[in-house]
């Protein structure tokens, strides 16, 4: 299952997770039951889950069969009532899901897709979409990933490496701010050497 959260699980994965927790509880609750009564079915379920997820990566048909497929319920601005009925979804459910994505007017929506995990993906009509830098022909500098360099007086060498910075830069920053590593509550920086430093005792951004 990897690092996915409960809400992101496929239906089959959710069922297997519930079954495993239930099976693990049985031999623990009953003293007279051998542990193998729990271990064997759990091992079989884990093996099947691994087998299925492996096959789902390899065979597209298997992925569709086990994981289900996405369904379009608003197609080019038109609500597909038949598709919604097949998903047992009402207009109220649809509006609730849209509101959770900060969309309050269905007329702004061009496509709504219900994913196999039950979540919806929305594409707004071109006129309702947020303006991007590309739309405005703006050239924004790429600062890379901002990383934590010092957190609560502890230096992160990994953060320095990701931002392609070195100890000389760090010493310079500390000198500029007249403090040592131990005095720093938070130091964040990016590849362009832009940084934000908060000293201990002034822990507000």
């Amino acid at each position, binding site marked *: 299952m990897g690092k996915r959260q409960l809400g992101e699980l496929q239906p089959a994965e959710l069922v297997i997770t519930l079954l495993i927790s239930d099976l693990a509880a049985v031999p623990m609750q009953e003293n007279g*039951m051998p*542990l193998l009564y729990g271990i*064997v079915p759990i091992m079989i379920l884990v*093996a*099947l889950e*691994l087998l299925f997820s*492996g096959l789902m990566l390899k065979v597209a048909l298997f992925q569709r069969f086990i994981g289900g497929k996405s369904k379009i319920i608003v197609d080019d601005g038109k609500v597909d009532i038949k598709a919604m009925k097949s998903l047992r979804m009402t207009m109220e459910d649809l509006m609730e899901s849209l509101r959770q994505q900060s969309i309050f007017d269905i007329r702004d929506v061009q496509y709504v897709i219900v994913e196999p995990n039950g979540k919806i993906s929305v594409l707004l009509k071109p006129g309702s979409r947020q303006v991007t830098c590309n739309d405005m022909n703006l050239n924004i500098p790429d600062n890379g990933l901002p990383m934590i360099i010092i957190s609560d007086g502890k230096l992160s060498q990994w953060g320095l490496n990701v931002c392609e910075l070195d100890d000389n830069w760090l010493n310079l920053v500390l000198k500029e701010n007249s403090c040592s590593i131990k005095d720093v509550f938070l130091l964040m920086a990016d590849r362009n050497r832009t940084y934000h430093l908060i000293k201990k005792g002034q822990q507000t951004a």
Partner: protein
Amino acid sequence: MKRIFVALIILLLVTAMCGTAIAIQTQTVNKFSVMADDIKEAFESQDYEQCLVLSESFVDEFKAKSRLFPLFMRHSDITSIEETIAALPALLKAGDRHYFAAELAKCRSMLSNLALYESPSLDNIL
């Protein structure tokens, strides 16, 4: 591909584990059944001394050989058979032969059931 291999290895492990458990159980229960048959034979030929010796060795043998049973069998099933077997020598010593015969028959029936408890048959699955 790694996942599929891991899954297959786990399935093989489970199969091996279950196979071993069934083999141990069948082998041991067969041995017990033979012992119970010997006791019955001795009892029917009215050789009560031999019957007592066999019953006592049956109790010891069951205790020694059934140590692995709790790993894959319900503890209550094993305990009920053990209790029946343990009573056999005492019944003979007390001279209660009718009760002994009944308990021996009960014991043989329990052993034949024990052989079927963990077998992967359709009856057990359903």
